[in-house]
């Protein structure tokens, strides 16, 4: 599956109010182009920290399902985060990783996820449920299951490298943050 198809499938399964943290680079751009909503927090920099932001948020709003949409390069920069999540075990966190086995936003340099099974690392770190999807159908099915059950959950989706050009996120960082916070507390 293509990355944009995976993002579209995930976005299509979201209700109005689940907060989403999307990783920097093409993932945030595609999320913004596919389904821009105030409950999306688009990361621009701080590569690797999507799951950490998601963890802090999940612990602070335990009644909301928090979804992190991450990439393989990002997870590999902050692997320790999986162990912190596994230890704290927030029930309301879903960590989705779109794995194209490369740093696709910066020229397609290969990552270690061709060999390293990230979902097994998550499992060994204490995630309650882990799933691996290699097709859109599998991804949708797994996502529906995880949205309806307690986590922390980890969903690895194997996606193809490359994608169509997508515009940058059109909002100033402060606007992204302010509208996200407002949306969260207006619910």
């Amino acid at each position, binding site marked *: 599956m293509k990355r944009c198809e995976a993002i579209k499938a995930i976005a299509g399964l979201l209700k109005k109010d689940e*907060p989403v*943290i999307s990783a920097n680079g093409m993932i945030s751009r595609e999320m913004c182009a596919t389904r821009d909503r105030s409950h999306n*927090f688009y*990361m*621009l*920099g*701080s590569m*690797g*920290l*999507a*799951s*950490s*932001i*998601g*963890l*802090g*948020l*999940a*612990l*602070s*709003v335990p009644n909301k399902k928090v979804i992190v949409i991450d990439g393989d390069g990002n997870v590999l920069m*902050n692997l*320790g*985060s999986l*162990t*912190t999540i596994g230890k*704290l075990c927030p029930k309301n966190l879903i960590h989705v990783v779109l794995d194209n086995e490369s740093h696709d936003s910066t020229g397609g340099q290969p990552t270690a996820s061709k060999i390293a099974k990230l979902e097994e690392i998550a499992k060994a770190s204490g995630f309650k449920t882990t799933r691996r999807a290699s097709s859109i159908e599998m991804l949708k099915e797994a996502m529906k299951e995880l949205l309806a059950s307690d986590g922390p959950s980890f969903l690895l989706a194997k996606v193809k490298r490359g994608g169509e050009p997508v515009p940058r996120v059109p909002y100033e*960082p*402060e606007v*992204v*943050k302010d509208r*996200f*916070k407002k949306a*969260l*507390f207006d619910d």
Partner: protein
Amino acid sequence: MKADEFCLLLKGYGFNFFAGVPCTILKDIIGHLLNDRDVIYITATREEEAIGIATGAYLGGKKSVVLMQNSGIGNSMGALGSLPLLYKVPMLLLVSWRGYRGKDAPEHLIMGEAMLKLLRSVGIPFQVLSQWGIEEEVSTAVRDMEKRQIPIALLLRRGVIK
């Protein structure tokens, strides 16, 4: 000031979420936070991870403090620049100052000497905590943090908190 009094002081300003990487200078403070049921303390694996967690907590309505040794400022400069400084996320950075005035184990001397320059270079204001002026210094830092909506560093030398 004692560690428990210092924790009470921070809690008095509404800080209720803490994430950090330990340092011996911070151990009594962290010990109190870990045992305090009114606050959350998260042991992070790296300082930038703690900054990410603290940012998420802020988005979820908490008031956050990140604890680290000054070597961690070096580790987390990129994250500070492209997360809390970029998005204007207020938080306190409680940073232990190893290598202060060149008196410490050799591994602390270079980063100890560089710390103020590092903070100034990315525009993070700081307060050096002193034995007799902590209340005033923390009050100034919190006021600055609220006004500017960015991280503010509190620098803690050995012996200031008992």
